């Protein structure tokens, strides 16, 4: 274990404990952690084990999935702007999840929700990759993403507008901005298997992504199976982003911000960046989820809002740098 991994693990651990301690129900940290471990005090235990614990776990899982996907996409496309939210993967997954919910497919069998979302994500990644071609030019990737994102967002609004459920329309903001409020272990169980499969796929790309830094031709000459690498990146990203979006909505910018911050610490090796970004993603989503509960506790402030405050300025900065590089 490298020093960076240790530091990141400590940060995630600290934020996870903090996340367990933040909430509107007024009881002290000692009582909270005591009830969580020992089960003493019926109401406190219920709050800790059924409300705050699944929320904290889900923040870690969702953050790790999004951070790792961002790192893998950027490594494969060799483009620091590639991010699941920005290139329309998250919104496509959200659209597919909403369709599964509104058609009743998700209530017919529970796994239909994550399966549908990852199918949506899969189509979006596939489309971006096909449009970007083997060289993955920055501009093409972003433009393709804008088009896919716009279409998915519009169709998502349409689907919710057509719903017979009067609450559905107001949920557009949840699906587009993401939130972890009042999620339960049912959601953890639904998402975890798909995320774990996604992490495995992405972990297998480690050496391929490192080799790819030499350029596609050189990597091919080294005997790198490029087709297999491509399948693993597409599949892993779809699994990760699909499962995360199905339970938490589309949370943008995690996959952009985290790899960008951590890249210098891993000497820009895309392979090493994968694990670091998973941990960093978990930390940043935990932090954002703590922030939404502290800033506006009664309003269910959306995670995507907080992430956009951090992510959008960085995105503009990266565009500036890209422009300078092109000039």
């Amino acid at each position, binding site marked *: 274990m490298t020093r960076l991994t240790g530091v990141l693990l400590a940060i995630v651990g600290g934020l996870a404990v903090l996340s367990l301690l933040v909430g509107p*129900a007024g009881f002290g940290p000692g009582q909270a952690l005591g009830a969580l471990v020992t089960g003493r005090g019926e109401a406190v235990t219920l709050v800790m084990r059924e409300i705050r614990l699944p929320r904290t776990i889900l923040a870690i899982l969702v953050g790790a999935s999004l951070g790792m996907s961002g790192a893998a996409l950027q490594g494969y496309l060799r483009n620091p702007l590639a991010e699941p939210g920005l290139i329309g993967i998250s919104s496509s997954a959200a659209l597919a999840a909403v369709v599964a*919910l509104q058609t009743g497919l998700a209530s017919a069998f529970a796994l239909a929700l994550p399966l549908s979302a990852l199918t949506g994500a899969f189509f979006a990644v596939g489309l971006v990759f096909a449009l970007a071609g083997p060289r993955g030019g920055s501009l093409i990737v972003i433009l393709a993403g804008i088009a896919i994102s716009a279409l998915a967002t519009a169709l998502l609004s349409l689907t919710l507008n057509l719903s017979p459920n*009067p609450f559905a329309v107001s949920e557009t903001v949840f699906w587009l901005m993401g939130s972890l409020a009042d999620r339960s272990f049912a959601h953890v169980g639904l998402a975890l298997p798909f995320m774990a499969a996604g992490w495995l796929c992405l972990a297998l790309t480690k050496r391929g992504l490192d080799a790819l830094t030499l350029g596609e031709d050189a990597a091919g000459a080294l005997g790198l199976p490029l087709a297999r690498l491509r399948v693993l990146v597409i599949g892993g990203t779809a699994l990760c982003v699909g499962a995360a979006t199905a339970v938490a909505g589309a949370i943008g910018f995690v996959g952009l911000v985290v790899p960008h911050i951590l890249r210098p610490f891993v000497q820009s090796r895309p392979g090493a960046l994968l694990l670091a970004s998973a941990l960093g993603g978990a930390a940043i989503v935990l932090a954002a989820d703590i922030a939404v509960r502290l800033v506006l506790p009664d309003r269910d402030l959306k995670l995507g809002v907080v992430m956009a405050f951090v992510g959008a300025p960085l995105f503009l900065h990266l565009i500036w740098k890209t422009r300078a590089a092109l000039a």
Partner: protein
Amino acid sequence: MTTKQRPDAGKSHGRSTSAFAPKCTALWLAALLSLGVTLAEAETPTRVVSMNLCTDQLAMMLAAPGQLISVSSIAHDPFTSPMHIEAQAYPTNYGSAEEIFLLAPDLVLAGSYSNPTTIAMLRRLRLRVEQIDLVEDLSQVATRLREVGEILDRTAEAEAAVDVFEARLEELRAPVPGGPLTAFYYPNGYTLGTETLSHEILSAAGIPHLAERLGRAFSGRLALEELVMADPAMIITSDPYPAASRSEEILRHPAMRRLTEPHGAFVAGNEWICGTPHVLAALEELAHERAARQ
């Protein structure tokens, strides 16, 4: 607002539709012709349009045959309208000014929270619009009945309805307070305060209300963990609408399920929304529930 949603038409319910289109030209002419009459005097109205769920109920109860010509679209919705079967006899409107004007009404009944732009437009078109206030305590049910009776020129019917309502209310009012500590918990964690009709119904049944203990006069979001900590013995909630929504998912949260064991949550039906004599059905059900849980 006292209830889980505004009882106005023009929502995205989209369940019931009615075809006005072929009649439009004829109605347009009728509208022009009737303008003169409307201006002349507010006599006994003969073409009444209601655009609010609660005025729908009062009008259906009190109007003379043929006097009421249209009710709001949500009057047909079994989830919110206790008179959805009776309402089938009336064409519906979606509460837009254009649509209502073309019906050529000589009286429009609206709620005090109906879309103000629509109301202003209808008044600009010189239609008579009467806005009926919300009911915040049970004694106001009689007031509203009399008010609408007066407007529709059906005072005798209104008095009769008031007598029946008040007699039954006295029978149902619980003499001794008791029963489980109760909280209202609706989609999105929306809970009701003490200044609501639902609180009045609960109090009439003698049941203690959590909002009173927490000192919450107004309705609003209550975090699930705050509800768990308050540990109410009974939770009143709503029936899920068709097609899933994340707003309603909170009602199926494992913590919520644990909290409502072993009896399950009490589902507030469509009688809880409007301050009309239908609240008696809610009171009756609540009395049964209280007896069953003792």
